[in-house]
């Protein structure tokens, strides 16, 4: 089994060089560049820092980042080469498949590059070579950890999320990565500029996690403290043992689990957004609304003003002389508020076509839930990415939880309020098919009332979460910040849930009146 898998891996590796000469040449070049980068990554700290302990701290950071990536990246972006599931029909024991898969991972590009980096590290850190056995032990443990972590997280991702949800996972991973970038940038600038003490404290903390343990341990051994070194290595060893221990059951479960047959998807193949949503009322409404957002210019025109509002607000505050760093927290909640508030007249946008929802007898809460899809699909990534940008501009990453909590709360609360108002007070809007810049054909009371009331309601219900977040912004303690995050999420979700239930009730009760109202506007 193992020999066969190794041959397969070798073929997969070799396939990069097959084909035309230019293609092979390009593969060789890329491979050499990547190897050079791996060596450079080991070499760079010796260029930057001359003091051994500081250099070790940097190595802890770099190593932690690499091992963290080895654990997380395969979870979100696995290409599906040689996964346990594929061997379900092979007549071999799960145990032998599991060990063969693990063993053959050695022959993959990331594993080879990791090996290059580790060897370069061993060569370029003469101070670590003193007790050679400690260095070798540490680096071998790192290698084992990286290999098993990659396999385990990739297999778990395959086991929990079937192959048809790979795209969603990749999108989530990308959003998280983009959201982390400003933080990483901020972290690097902070570390390079910070006083010695705080960096060392961070490195020491990371050194007790499996990600940085080997590098911290190697430095301890070099300093002559073998006991501390062994303790560090022990942490990493424990992590490797845990990964090994879960790997075998995961493989067994993967081999036995039966994936949902892909057949039903045939019904919605080629139907655009409908293909990506399940065949339930709320989901198809979500798909329909997303289709409308992409096809109907009326929605785009409504959204296009949103980015300009916070810019104008900032300008106004800035002219008035407010501190730009504090102002950094303002634009994102405003954007999210306006984004979610754009739903407050959603039923009227459908015009009389809403009759098909009423005539089908679907539950009102399904209608309400489905309509949230585009706003949440845009709003959640914007809230996450925007929050990290916000704290980077503010120059204070410790308030990130509070900022995220506040923004999510504003988004959820406003969604909930809009869910109620779009069935409570629909007012005339541009008809489907008319120019998005055209005035509605019918005017009367309602538009001003609904806009004012829904905005006021959204603001009022946002106040508790924003208030707690502001307290956490002023008094920067981890407890307040985590509390603000938890409160923001829970409170926002509660208001959203209430809004959906209440809006759904109103929809159930007033469906015919909604049709009558849209008929008047049409």
């Amino acid at each position, binding site marked *: 089994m193992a020999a066969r898998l190794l041959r397969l891996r070798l073929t997969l590796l070799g396939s990069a060089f097959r084909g035309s000469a230019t293609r092979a040449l390009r593969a060789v070049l890329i491979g050499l560049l990547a190897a050079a980068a791996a060596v450079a990554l080991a070499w760079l700290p010796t260029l930057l820092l001359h003091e051994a302990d500081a250099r070790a701290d940097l190595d802890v950071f770099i190593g932690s980042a690499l091992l963290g990536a080895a654990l997380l990246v395969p979870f979100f972006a696995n290409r599906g080469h040689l996964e346990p599931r594929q061997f379900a029909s092979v007549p071999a024991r799960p145990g032998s498949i599991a060990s063969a898969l693990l063993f053959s991972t050695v022959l993959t590009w990331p594993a080879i590059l990791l090996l290059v980096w580790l060897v370069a590290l061993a060569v370029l850190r003469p101070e670590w070579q003193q007790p050679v056995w400690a260095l070798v032990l540490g680096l071998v443990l790192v290698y084992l950890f990286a290999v098993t972590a990659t396999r385990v997280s990739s297999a778990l991702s395959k086991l929990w999320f079937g192959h048809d949800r790979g795209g969603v996972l990749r999108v989530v991973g990308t959003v998280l990565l983009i959201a982390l970038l400003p933080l990483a940038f901020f972290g690097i600038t902070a570390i390079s500029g910070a006083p010695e003490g705080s960096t060392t404290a961070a490195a020491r903390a990371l050194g007790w996690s499996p990600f940085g343990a080997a590098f911290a341990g190697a430095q301890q051994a070099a300093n002559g403290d073998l006991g501390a070194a062994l303790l560090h290595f022990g942490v990493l060893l424990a992590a490797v043992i845990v990964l090994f221990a879960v790997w075998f059951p995961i493989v067994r479960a993967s081999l036995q689990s039966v994936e949902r047959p892909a057949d039903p998807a045939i019904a919605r193949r080629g139907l655009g957004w409908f293909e990506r949503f399940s065949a339930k009322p709320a989901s198809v409404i979500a798909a329909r609304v997303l289709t409308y957002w992409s096809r109907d210019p009326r929605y785009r025109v409504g959204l296009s003003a949103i980015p300009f509002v916070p810019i104008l607000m900032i300008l106004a505050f800035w002219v008035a002389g407010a501190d730009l760093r504090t102002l950094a927290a303002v634009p994102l909640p405003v954007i999210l508020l306006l984004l979610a508030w754009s739903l407050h007249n959603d039923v009227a946008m459908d015009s009389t076509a809403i009759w098909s929802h009423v005539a*089908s007898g679907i539950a009102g809460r399904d209608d309400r839930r489905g309509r949230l899809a585009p706003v949440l699909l845009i709003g959640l990534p914007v809230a996450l990415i925007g929050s990290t940008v916000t704290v980077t501009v503010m120059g204070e990453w410790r308030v990130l939880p509070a900022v995220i909590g506040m923004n999510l709360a504003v988004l959820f609360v406003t969604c909930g309020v809009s869910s109620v108002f779009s069935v409570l007070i629909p007012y005339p809007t541009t008809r489907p098919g008319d120019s998005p810049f055209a005035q509605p054909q019918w005017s009367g009371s309602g538009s001003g009332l609904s806009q004012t009331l829904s905005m006021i309601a959204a603001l009022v219900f946002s106040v508790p979460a924003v208030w707690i977040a502001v307290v956490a912004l002023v008094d920067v303690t981890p407890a307040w910040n985590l509390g603000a995050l938890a409160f923001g999420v829970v409170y926002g979700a509660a208001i959203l849930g209430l809004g959906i239930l209440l809006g759904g009730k109103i929809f159930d009760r007033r469906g015919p009146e909604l049709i009558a109202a849209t008929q008047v506007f049409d």
Partner: protein
Amino acid sequence: MPVPSIVRARERGRLATQNPVVLRTEVLTKNYGQIAAASDVSIQVHAGSFTGIVGPNGAGKTTTLSMISGLNRPTSGRITVHDIDVWADGPAAKRLIGTLPDRLRLFDRLTGAQLLYYIGILNGVREDAVATRAAELAEAFGLGSAMDRLVSDYSAGMQKKIGLACAMIHAPEVLVLDEPFEAIDPVSASNVTDILEKFVAGGGSVIMSSHSLDLIQRVCDHVAVIVDGSVIAQGTVDAVRDGMSLEERFAHLTGESGAEKGLQWLHGSSDSV
């Protein structure tokens, strides 16, 4: 020589009267302020019957039909489908009703295929069934080549047909159709008639409105005449027309013989002379 639909309709009328009543409205009334759009409308539709509602423009046909399909709340009265009250247990009753309203929009930014799938799922059809039904309906209504185009680009007649297909996708017991033949060309109209007749022959019921007496006489077996919001005659087409043509009978019932009243100024001479 195939049997013309009018003969089939007469034959069906006699048989359907024996069948149980599927749809029943009881003293249905709808007031818009002072104006009564429908007053005390009591109609019965038998299983397997094709019932027409006729009346002059603005007589209350659309109001009555939209109250039946749960889109327009009656001021008073009761509607039951298979003894389920449409206005008390909406979701259960609406599963049994297929609706084609007049003058209401469809979600026309979807393609034909998307719209059929969407309406099918909303009406609780299982996903695998939607696929086959949508394909067969598109085929039956001659929309096969248009399924990938946006419904907003369809002609008025094609929109009626996709609307009909949407009304039928969840295999309802009763079809409530408001002016289903409006804007449909003659060839498609006979095609649609065939589809509806098959539906009725399979035990379903159709209640449709039209202002074309000729059409009603040709395809329906039962008829209800509504004038000014009230039913002034109903029963099998033969019973209602009472030996006359439906058009003569209608003129007789409404008391209007039409042409001779007024508009003298319009005839003969012109103001510009």
